[in-house]
Each structure stands twice: as structure tokens, then as C-alpha cells.
């Protein structure tokens, strides 16, 4: 585990770390990340600017600096200077503009604060550039060069040292488990070897939305499936992915993998959290350099399977007008589009869709670690106007989503704009409509 990188990028210590060495590390990390897809993307961009209109940070500010492809400019120049004929020539004769530390510092806002890794730009680019893939890669170089925002550095350090970006410890989880057991009259299984499913949570769920834990307990009881929580690895989120430090991301992931292997579970359930799913489901095996001996499913995928197997028996229906907010990572990195809609239809009668939804949904404005960056708060609230516009068009009475981070960000946005809109997680909503036990 490389905690050295963490202390070097922590606020206050940047001055201690030699700047040149940091920049060199960053440059090295940038070049390490450039692969065939990235070279094909940079070769193809004709500066049409269409990606700007796919990004909520541009649409809500109309500041051209927030054009997604522009956020990659230092990486593009580095590619050009190292991998193209004229770029190499210009560099050799001293005509190329080198990427400097000051430039990277200036780009920190563009690569972190104004990008939620939502991936909408990647779906819009006419030449097919996977822009979010490149931003994710570029963050590796930015973090190595010491230009990650303080908020994310803190979250990552907390996660590595204390097991949670918010500093949630086992005692907190145990206290919530006791509450849930009291409320439901059911046992919440802890460290049960041989259970089918291992449930993990985002800190946000443990602290703000323990209803999710209660919902799982009741749904699994009715479905008759075995599950467990691990006392050693219950945190699902991964600040290492958001900040762009693969070694730390791997360390966080390995804790979950070790626990899952120790408890011999068949499936690990990614909670209602978008990027946790991205981290565990898609990045994990590549960061750990091995395939898992278990499956990973998002809770919505599992619930839809239980429904299909007749193990999710529901009653009554909400009659208030509601809509579903798609978490970006679920739809654009996981293709989980139909499952929440199928499930929602079982418990609600008046469902309306936002004008751009599913794989073309708009982000809440706080994904990809942005909600952990204090200095980005004003910008994030501005970007939230995109979602506000979508919601205002519908005039709904309730918002359902499946990501605790989306939910916190949306609740803050709704508060800031004096809107009235109660929110609920889909798992929790389903649990409220379970058939009574006979």
C-alpha cells in the first residue's frame, strides 16, 4: 500500500514535497495511461464542441472552459509531444509548449470539480471519443503530480486509514444494526460464513440512510436467501478511484475481496451507490489483476432477479406522481436501465420519465467525487439547475433513485433552490411494500 503518495498530496505537505519530482511523477503517470483507445480519441477530435452540450457544467454556466475535451488538454499535448511526428519534432527543436506544474494546478478544477465522471460526453461525441475514460485516466497523473483537491485527498486518506471516507467505524455500523434489529424484529447476520450474499454499504447509507439496511434485512427475510455483513469490510465506496490513485483503489477493493473470500459468499452486492458499482464490478479485477472467485451484482440487478424468481412479493401501490433518477454509473457503465423501471412499476402507478433518461440521463452534479470537494460546492449547485429543470418540467411529488450519493446531492440541491420534493431509495420503497409475513 502506498500511503506515501497520500501524504505527499495532502494539503500543507505539498510544499514539503519537491515540486519537480511531483511533476515528473505526474508526467510518468500520464504517459503510462496513454493506450490505443486514447491515441485514437485524440487523433479523431476535430474540435466540433458538441461534447460541451452534453456536460451539465457547460450547459449551466456556458463557460467554454468546461467543454469536456478541453479538460484533457494537458494529456492531449503530452500525447502529441510523445507519440506524433510533428509533436516529437517540435519537442526536439524546443518549439513544443511543455506541460508545467502551474498548468496542471490550473487544470485541477477542470479535471475534478467540473467533472462527475458521468460519461454523458462519451455517448455524444460524433467521432466516438470515450472522453470520460480519458478523464478517469488523467486523474491518475493529476494525483501523482499532487494536484488532487484537498477534499478528495482527505476522503481517500480517511478511507485508507480508517476504512471509510467519512470516518465511519465498525461501532457505528453495529449501533445501526442494533436499531435495525429492534425496528424490524429480525436478525441482521454479521460474519456468517457460507452465506450466499455479502452486503456492503456506502458510509452515506450507514450514517444518513440506515433504512437501506433495514430494507435489505426485510427483503432477504421474505425471499428466504442467506446473506451477511462483514465486520472487516463493509465500506463499498472507493475514493481511490475518484481521486485517481489506482494503488489505493486496489487496497480498498482488496479488503472487500478478502472478506468475501473469507466468508465464502457466492455474490457481493454493490449497494445503492453508483461509483461503488463501477469500482467493484468493473475496475476491481483489473486493479487487483485477477478475476474474482465470486460475482458482483448491483442491488437492483439482484432485486430484479428475485422478482423474476417470484421471491419478491409486493402489495399496494404509491399513487403519488413520481420519477426515477438514474445514477450515471449504473446506466452508462452498467446498462442497468430496465431493472429499476420494472421494479418501480410494481409499487407505483403514476411514473413519469424525465425528458432525457436512461443512458442519456443527466447527472445530479455530485458524482465522481465532486460532492467531497468543498471548493466545488458553488459550481455543483449551479450544475444542479440541469436536474432542477428536468424535475420542474415533470411536476412530480416524489423522486426515487438508487444511489445514496445522488440522493444527498439532490437533497442539498432541492434545499438550495427551495423546492419541495421528498426522496426515497428504490430498495427502501420496495421494502415498504412487502407483503406482510403470514
Amino acid at each position, binding site marked *: 500500500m502506498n500511503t506515501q503518495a497520500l501524504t505527499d498530496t495532502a494539503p500543507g505537505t505539498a510544499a514539503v514535497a519537491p515540486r519537480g519530482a511531483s511533476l515528473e511523477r505526474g508526467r510518468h503517470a500520464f504517459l503510462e495511461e496513454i493506450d490505443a483507445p486514447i491515441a*485514437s480519441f485524440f*487523433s479523431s477530435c476535430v474540435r466540433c*464542441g458538441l461534447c460541451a*452540450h452534453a456536460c451539465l457544467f457547460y450547459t449551466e454556466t456556458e463557460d467554454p472552459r468546461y467543454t469536456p475535451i478541453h479538460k484533457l488538454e494537458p494529456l492531449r499535448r503530452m500525447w502529441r509531444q510523445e507519440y506524433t511526428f510533428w509533436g516529437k519534432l517540435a519537442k526536439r527543436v524546443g518549439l513544443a509548449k511543455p506541460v508545467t506544474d502551474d498548468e496542471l494546478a490550473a487544470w485541477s478544477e477542470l479535471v475534478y470539480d467540473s467533472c462527475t465522471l458521468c460519461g454523458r460526453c462519451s455517448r455524444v461525441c*460524433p467521432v*466516438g471519443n470515450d472522453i470520460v475514460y480519458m478523464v478517469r485516466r488523467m486523474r491518475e497523473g493529476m494525483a501523482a503530480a499532487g494536484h488532487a483537491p484537498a477534499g478528495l485527498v482527505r476522503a481517500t486518506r480517511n478511507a485508507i486509514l480508517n476504512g471509510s471516507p467519512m470516518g465511519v467505524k465498525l461501532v457505528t455500523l453495529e449501533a445501526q444494526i442494533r436499531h435495525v434489529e429492534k425496528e424490524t424484529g429480525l436478525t441482521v447476520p454479521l460474519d456468517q460464513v457460507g452465506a450466499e450474499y455479502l452486503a456492503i454499504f456506502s458510509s452515506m447509507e450507514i450514517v444518513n440512510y440506515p433504512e437501506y439496511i433495514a430494507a435489505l434485512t426485510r427483503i432477504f427475510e421474505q425471499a428466504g436467501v442467506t446473506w451477511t455483513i462483514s465486520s472487516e469490510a463493509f465500506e463499498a465506496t472507493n475514493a481511490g478511484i475518484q481521486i485517481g490513485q489506482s494503488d489505493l483503489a486496489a487496497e480498498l477493493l482488496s479488503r472487500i475481496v478478502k472478506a468475501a473470500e473469507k466468508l465464502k459468499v457466492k455474490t457481493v452486492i454493490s449497494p445503492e451507490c453508483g461509483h461503488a458499482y463501477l469500482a467493484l464490478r468493473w475496475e476491481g479485477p483489473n486493479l487487483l489483476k485477477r478475476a474474482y472467485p465470486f460475482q458482483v451484482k448491483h442491488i437492483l440487478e439482484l432485486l430484479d432477479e428475485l422478482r423474476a424468481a417470484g421471491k419478491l412479493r409486493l402489495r399496494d401501490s404509491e399513487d403519488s406522481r413520481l420519477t426515477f433518477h438514474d445514477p450515471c454509473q449504473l446506466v452508462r457503465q452498467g446498462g442497468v436501465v430496465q431493472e429499476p423501471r420494472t421494479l418501480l412499476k410494481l409499487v407505483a402507478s403514476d411514473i413519469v420519465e424525465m425528458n432525457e433518461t436512461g443512458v442519456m440521463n443527466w447527472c445530479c452534479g455530485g458524482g465522481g467525487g465532486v460532492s467531497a470537494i468543498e471548493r466545488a460546492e458553488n459550481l455543483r449547485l449551479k450544475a444542479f439547475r440541469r436536474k432542477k429543470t428536468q424535475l420542474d418540467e415533470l411536476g412530480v411529488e416524489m423522486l426515487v433513485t438508487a444511489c445514496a450519493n445522488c440522493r444527498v446531492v439532490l437533497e442539498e440541491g432541492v434545499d438550495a433552490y427551495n423546492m419541495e420534493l421528498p426522496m426515497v431509495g428504490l430498495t427502501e420503497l420496495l421494502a415498504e411494500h412487502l407483503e406482510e409475513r403470514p
Partner: protein
Amino acid sequence: MNSVDFLQWVRGPAFDAAVVIFVLGVIFRLFGILMLGKKPDLAEPRGGEWGPGLRTVLSRSLPDRGTFRREPVTVVAGYVFHIGFFITLFLSAPHIELFHAWFGLRWPALPTPLVDASAVITLLALVFLLAYRLANPVRRFLSGFEDYFVWGVTLLPVLTGYLAYHHLRLPYHALLALHILAVELLLVAFPFTHLMHTFTLFVARWYNGAASGRRGVVS
């Protein structure tokens, strides 16, 4: 050197050299991109790569509804230019004669007035796109020397071709030589600029679509 000698040189050794630079340049560029490779993905796939990759190669030619609504000008002007350029390049009788001489392949030409109209439309689209690049805040902000240079080397062959065909302003030989020279400039610039997108966009779209497909995301 009179205009006939110049024409001989332009369509002889100069043209050969330009074609060699173009062909080798494009091959080296594509090779250079693909050689960088991609790390194998160890995550259990949720869907296939090839089908969605190939589908995205086609489907990205159409904008999504939201993009079209927000930026119809870019989309429409882009279509007009590309279609006009391809018609002018591949469906005009003199060009088809050339392709026939080189590759032995022949296809029907469009009637001259239609090719003529498409050349004019292509030129108008190019002028409009330049004006739009200068007027639109996002485009102006993103654009650098290469973007304007590429615009110029794309405009010149169309403009000189149109003038030569109509024997305007200059003697035919001189105009034809200028036209061929402009084409050579385009060919030589091609592998070194983002004119390469003509080929690399297929690679880029494939990577994008394949990555989505692997994760079970409909592209």
C-alpha cells in the same frame, strides 16, 4: 517553366510523392495507434464487444435527440459539408475517370449540374463552418492553428476544382495544375493533422462501443 510543364510536374512526380506520403503516413499513424494496445479487461463481461463496437461505428453517425436540439447548426452544417464533399470527390465524372485509371474500378457519375451544385454547397458549408467556428464561443475557444489550417487545405481543392471545371479567371492548364497541387497539399497534410479522423474515428467509435457493450450498455 510554363503552365504546361508545371502541370506535367504537378501531376507526375509531385503527385506520386504526395500519394506515397499520404498512404505511408496513414498506415504508420494507424499502426502507431493500434500498437499502443490496451490492457486486457479481467472483469466478467455483461455483454459482447464486437457487435456493439461495430454498431457504434455506424450509430455515431446520427446525433442523439438532445444534442440535435441543443446544437442543430453544428450537426446540420457538418452533414452538409461531409455529404457535399463526398459527392464532389467520388461522383464527378473526371474524378471517376482518374479512379478508373488507378484501380480499374468504375461507377456511375452524377450529372454535371448536380456535382456542380454539390461543389457550391460544399464551399458554402465550409465558409459557413469557418464563420461559425469564429462566432460560436465554444468552437472559437477550442480552435487553434491546426483547425484553421485544416479548414484551408480542405477548401482549396474544392475551390480550385470548381474554378478549373468552369475555366474561370485563369487558363485551364494553370487552374488544373493549381487544383492538383491543392489536392497534394491535402494529401500531405492528412496523416499529420486531425484530417486523420476520416480513418481513426472508426477505431475510436469501435473502442467506445466495445467498452459499452462489454458492460451491457446499449450503444
